[in-house]
């Protein structure tokens, strides 16, 4: 039986890492995820885990060491935020290309500049094409549960891909909430022992990883990688279901609220989706048919499922906690708009960029988004595709 405990997001992540007991952690501390690395280093020092903790001099080295340790045949975890993730960028692609299921917790934080330590999603959105599975957590319970599931998803033999488990910097990482922490043994049994796939330390079967790969084979190798993502999507669904069967909290690609009969709907990720749930309840009390799509799995992107879930709406707003500079709107919006269009949907859709650098998003802010949608639902017209929320103008 699990136990209810009050923990911060960071401590819940460290606790999950202790229970997972990975073979190798090579991490470099950065705000707001420092506390995870620090707490986990204590577990290592106190002998509570068997992990080989590698103290490195940068995030580039951290992810290099993690990728190599995974290739050698170990279960490997890492933690970072913002510019730390940016410094890993080169290696992130290599981890995914090598099909190594490294598990990385990202405590989402704004990328510089200017220097800002607070939450937005510019860091992980910037790595969206790197080939990592990406799960986003709304609250402390979810960041604990998602990290455990990340291990099972990434390590499946038909997937073998690295996974980022993302939580909002400070909003979740430094917020105490009650969560159910499962028993160590139950967690270990649920993820199972690590099964290496062609480990480099298998000296009986030497092979080469990461050789030069030119115009004659590279595109076939990329196409082979491409084939892993439908399986990864299936794995997110199946492991989320299996997690529910064991621990009573079921997960899927997304969570929806009121979408069955919603006229207007917002798409949001992470902690803002939690705020939006309250707004939906309030609007429903007023008789407004409001709905919410909280996207949990951004990679692989469940475009068809999102388009189907939003099909009955009269107006939809996608909320992006990241700007795609020069694109005219946010990254989540681009993909959802494309998924709607290719899925034959003609629902009017707009985009709100919000919360950059930790700007608070209050229920009233999200309510204003819904009020805007009510107008669009009436007229069928989107006057401005992208607006920025709560910017002083």
């Amino acid at each position: 039986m699990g136990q209810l405990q009050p923990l911060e997001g960071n401590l819940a992540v460290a606790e999950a890492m202790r229970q997972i007991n990975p073979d190798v952690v090579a991490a470099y501390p950065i705000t707001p995820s420092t506390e995870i690395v620090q707490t986990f280093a204590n577990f290592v020092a106190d002998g509570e885990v068997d992990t080989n903790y590698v103290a490195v001099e940068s995030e580039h080295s951290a992810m290099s060491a993690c990728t190599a340790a995974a290739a050698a045949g170990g279960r490997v975890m890492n933690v970072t935020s913002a510019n730390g993730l940016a410094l890993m960028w080169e290696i992130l692609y290599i981890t995914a290309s090598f099909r190594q299921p490294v598990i990385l917790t990202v405590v989402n934080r704004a990328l510089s500049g200017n220097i800002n330590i607070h939450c937005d999603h510019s860091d992980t959105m910037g790595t969206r094409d790197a080939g990592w599975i990406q799960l986003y957590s709304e609250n402390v319970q979810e960041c604990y549960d998602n990290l455990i599931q990340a291990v099972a998803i990434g390590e499946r033999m038909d997937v073998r891909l690295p996974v980022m488990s993302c939580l909002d910097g400070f909003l979740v990482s430094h917020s105490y909430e009650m969560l159910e922490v499962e028993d160590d043994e139950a967690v270990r049994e649920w993820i199972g022992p690590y099964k290496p796939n062609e480990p480099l330390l298998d000296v009986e079967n030497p092979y080469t990883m990461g050789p030069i790969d030119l115009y004659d084979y590279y595109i076939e190798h990329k196409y082979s990688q491409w084939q892993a993502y439908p399986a990864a999507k299936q794995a997110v669904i199946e492991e989320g279901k299996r997690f529910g069967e064991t621990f009573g909290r079921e997960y899927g690609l997304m969570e929806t609220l009121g979408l069955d009969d919603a006229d207007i709907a917002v798409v949001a990720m992470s902690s803002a989706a939690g705020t939006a749930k309250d707004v939906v309840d309030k609007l429903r009390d007023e008789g407004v048919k409001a709905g919410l799509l909280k996207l949990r799995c951004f990679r692989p992107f469940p475009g068809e499922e999102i388009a189907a879930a939003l099909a009955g709406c009269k107006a939809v707003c996608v909320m992006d906690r990241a700007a795609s500079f020069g694109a005219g709107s946010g990254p989540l919006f681009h993909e959802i708009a494309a998924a709607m269009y290719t899925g034959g949907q003609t629902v009017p859709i707009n985009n709100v960029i919000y919360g950059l650098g930790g700007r608070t998003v209050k229920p009233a802010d999200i309510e204003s988004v819904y009020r805007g949608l009510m107008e669009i639902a009436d007229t069928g017209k989107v006057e401005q595709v992208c607006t920025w929320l709560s910017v002083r103008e």
Partner: protein
Amino acid sequence: MRVYPPDAKWHEMADGGVIPQAGNAEEYDVSGWRSAHPVRDDECCIQCLFCWIYCPDNSVLVKDQKVVALDPKHCKGCGICAQVCPKDCITMQPGGDMPEEEDK
């Protein structure tokens, strides 16, 4: 399969772009990379083996401590052997075509 053939399909190769067969790089033909090729005059060669030690592609083939041939399958035509030869026995010629030197 020791080497993936040039027409290997994506699903016929190992995941992750790995090469599960060790030591098969020498079977990879890179003769198409050259735009010039070295021609060596065996008559003037004093067998100092400078060309052998400097060649970055292991393309100077040596047997019994004597240069016997330049390897047309792996020579990149970089010209280093011609530069370092103290007797100027090696000259670079335009074009990638490179006849196999006779194994003497």
